[in-house]
């Protein structure tokens, strides 16, 4: 009986210790994530203005219905989709190639690893102003193009080039992140596999397609999901480059930028919340589709 009580006490003590360890995290997500999440869900069914909360009223699904006929939202969704379609595959392919490079026996491996990673730790605002400078009408890039007789566009200020310019900038600044994760994955592949393949006479390409790629599958999935989530949330670059307008002519209007403008410039916060939930559902569906395609347990 005494030992049972002691066991009980120890079990209780252990459980409480666990909660004590988790207390800051539980408090933080309750107050700043779960609570606001519920609140956002509620006001997405309201006409709600922060400036005049007394005037807010229930409007049911009106915010959600309005989205489908809002040309700016459609444009923002199209831009964000194009952005994602362009950025995700390009940056993952470049990241994989770079990871293979810095994982091979080249000279100055650490230098290149650091050089390739540095854009990743750089502020998006700093990157944006640096690129605005490099790609301005009479900037360094256009001067170099002129040497080859090419008349460069005005990049970020040209309706056709603005979005691709932001895509290029995003690829440049985030490739390093995915490279490092690929690299960690490459280093986890047991070298015996390669040795055995070599004994069997497999060449470099066969080893890459029969060993490296299949072994990297879970990491490719992880990177795909992260990259997709990241690209659908693009905001900083579009904001800095267009000075918050999403211009020229909505060419750089992204979903998050539109949410920001709707919520905090037009103070139409119910509508902004509805948009944010639609964005969340889109991201969720895309992630689930990828999970299906990969049929892989990742966590």
């Amino acid at each position, binding site marked *: 009986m005494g030992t049972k009580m002691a066991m009980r006490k120890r079990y209780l003590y252990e459980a409480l210790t666990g909660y004590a360890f*988790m207390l800051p995290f539980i408090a933080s997500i309750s107050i700043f994530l779960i609570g606001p999440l519920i609140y956002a869900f509620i006001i997405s069914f309201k006409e709600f203005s922060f400036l005049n909360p007394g005037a807010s009223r229930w409007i049911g699904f009106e915010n959600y219905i309005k989205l489908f006929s809002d040309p700016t939202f459609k444009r923002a969704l199209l831009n964000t989709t194009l952005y994602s379609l362009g950025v995700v595959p390009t940056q993952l392919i470049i990241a994989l190639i770079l990871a293979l490079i810095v994982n091979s026996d080249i000279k100055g491996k650490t*230098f290149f690893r650091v050089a390739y990673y540095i854009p990743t730790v750089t502020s998006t605002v700093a990157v944006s102003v640096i690129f605005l400078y490099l790609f301005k009408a009479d900037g360094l890039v256009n001067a170099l193009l002129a040497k080859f007789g090419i008349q460069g566009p005005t990049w970020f200020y040209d309706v056709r080039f603005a979005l691709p310019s932001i895509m290029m900038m995003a690829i440049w600044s985030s490739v390093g992140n995915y490279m490092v994760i690929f690299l960690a994955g490459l280093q986890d592949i047991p070298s015996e596999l390669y040795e055995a393949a070599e004994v069997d006479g497999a060449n470099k390409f066969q080893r890459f397609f029969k060993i490296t790629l299949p072994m990297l599958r*879970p990491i490719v999935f992880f990177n795909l999901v992260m990259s997709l989530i990241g690209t*659908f949330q693009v905001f900083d670059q579009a904001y800095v480059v267009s000075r918050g307008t999403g211009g020229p002519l909505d060419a750089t209007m992204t979903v*998050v930028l539109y*949410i920001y403008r709707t919520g905090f410039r037009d103070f139409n916060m119910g509508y902004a919340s509805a948009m944010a*939930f639609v964005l969340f559902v889109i991201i969720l569906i895309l992630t689930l589709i990828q999970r299906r395609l990969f049929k892989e347990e990742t966590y």
Partner: protein
Amino acid sequence: MQKMLRFLFYIVVVGYAGITLGPFIWSIITSLKPTSELNTFAVNIKHLTLDNYKMIITKFPFLRWFINSAIVAAIVTFGNMLFNSMAGYALARINSPGRNLLFLIVLALMMIPGQVVMVPTYILLSKLGWVNTYMGLTIPFLTSNFGIFLMRQFFLTIPRELEEAATIDGMSRFGIFFKIVLPLAKPALATQFIFMFTGNWNSFLWPSLLTSTSDMYTLPVGLNSFYGQYYQFWNQVMAGAILLTLPTIVIFLIFQRYFVRGIATTGLK
């Protein structure tokens, strides 16, 4: 043929380093140029000067913004290192009822875009009177689901025997955590440090929402507003961009040797 391929390979290797480092080099050079030489690509080494840095620090509030960023990043990074590790450890090791549910919540919340809670969090913080305060810029960001996930995955890889031995020696959970487990977690902590520091230092959307007067701006918000007004002074804008970039690069260089190992051992894959 083999030699040819090797040569091409090195061109790609060096060329890409040029692509990543080139923009920085050109913006550093520009930040050192006098305004009179801005419209030429030629660089006169004798004319290079630190005046632009002096200018933005003395004539504009860049120093203030830098200090704001440093205070906020220090508090947020420290909070995350401590709280994420504690939560990650409990989720990995301590048998409290509901622990698996909590882990599922962490995973689910990782998928929710921060913008969903942007409006209510702003309302909450303004009701608390925390807009334009350090409290508003730090307290909502003291834990991170991603960081907790990272630490949990790492703690799962530490052999249990070490902790069991310490329990037999009569050490408490807190003692075990701080004296045995955390010192073993250096690569994971270094990885987390890089993610949390750079993430917060570079953060733009939240600080631009939560600050409305220049004296509370963080450096990215400040640089964006400075660029908006003085964009023709590219040398000063570039000096500001370099000032914003340098701390994260220095921190990355210091901790980078732990970095890949940290990611590999945290099973962040």
